[in-house]
């Protein structure tokens, strides 16, 4: 169980090792403060969505023998959970989250749906599913935070105009990804 948790954070880190949620909206999320706020929201969304998809898959789709509808229903559940959590977050944390919710959501839909589908494909039980999703969410937020910190410093670094922005973020992610790889070895 603990190994599932650790591997979800480091070995199979969503952003850096599985390339989920790589979009300019998440990679250049603009500052450490915002990265922490969005990390928290992403954690809530991932947990709600994974739980909902798992329950739906186990208690509705499997008994009906309708696994070919998995993709379709995962998407619908994703929309429902994401929007409800984001509306809540916009209400509870207006200062950090105002006007952000649609922008944040699109880059992360990919990662949120990815976690839910990975849970189903690996055939996890309920407890494993919870542990795996929380590990994945923590790993994603950690990678986002590290990347935001690096990008904040790089903004003032000298360098070619061509590398600014996304190319720089991707090269930084390459280095982080290599670090994660060697840390676990």
């Amino acid at each position, binding site marked *: 169980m603990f190994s599932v948790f650790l591997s979800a954070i480091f070995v199979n880190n969503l952003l*850096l*090792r*599985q*390339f*989920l*949620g*790589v*979009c*300019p*909206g998440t*990679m*250049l*999320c*603009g500052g450490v403060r915002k990265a922490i706020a969005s990390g928290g929201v992403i954690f809530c969304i991932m947990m709600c969505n994974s739980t909902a998809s798992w329950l739906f898959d186990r208690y509705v789709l499997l008994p009906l023998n309708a696994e*070919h*509808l*998995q*993709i*379709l229903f*995962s*998407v*619908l559940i*994703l*929309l429902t959970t994401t929007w409800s959590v984001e509306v809540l977050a916009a209400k509870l944390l207006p200062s950090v989250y105002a006007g*952000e919710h*649609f*922008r*944040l*959501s*699109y*880059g992360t*839909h*990919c990662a949120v*749906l*990815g976690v839910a*589908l*990975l849970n189903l*494909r690996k055939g996890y039980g309920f407890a494993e599913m919870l542990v795996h999703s929380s590990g994945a969410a923590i790993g994603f937020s950690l990678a986002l935070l590290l990347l935001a910190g690096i990008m904040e410093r790089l*903004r003032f670094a000298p360098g*070619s105009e*061509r*590398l*600014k*922005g*996304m*190319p*720089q*973020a*991707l*090269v930084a*992610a*390459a*280095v982080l*990804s*290599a670090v994660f*790889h060697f840390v676990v070895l």
Partner: protein
Amino acid sequence: MRAQHGEDLSPSFHPVRWIFRENPVFRLLLGLCPALGATSTAMNGFAMGAATAFVLLCTNATFSLVKRLVPRTVGIAVFLVIAAAYVSIADMTLKTFAPSIHRALGIFIPLIVVNCLILVGGGAPASACSGGGAPGAFSPSFADAFGMGLGFLLSLVLIGAVRQIGSAYLPVFGMPPGAFLTLGLLLAAAGRSRNGKNEPSGKR
């Protein structure tokens, strides 16, 4: 974005535009997840690009048929359900006829649904497109979708080819860091992208 700035509103069909000047991956920064994750070889890149182009074209055609009938508030949901149906078709087809490629692409096939490229090229309602790296409201024709799909396919083959050739000399190119590095350097080589420059893409 173009529609907002009032330039280039002509409906003329120019697929070459989507391959070079507005390449979805290198210029618009759309669909970067599969561009990184599904391109360990040129063949994988081709399969991923072809599946995405198929979903893009079919979704674009179907959604433009039902667009008038759908209330605005549920537009995105209807759009995604249509896309999910075509993705299921692509998923089952690949699983039956090319199981090895299906295994190599893994989770990225169902994730075609939430690819920003599908939303923009398929003509999803505007509010869905404001995230990620997508350029605001614009309603693409079938020709646009064709060009985007082709541009995406060619970019994935290019990235896959670079990684495959690179990994013959340096194994790191086949691994995740190599994917980020390859895409980063290719993006830099392609020049200025349309968004995601110095500031977060939301401030455009």
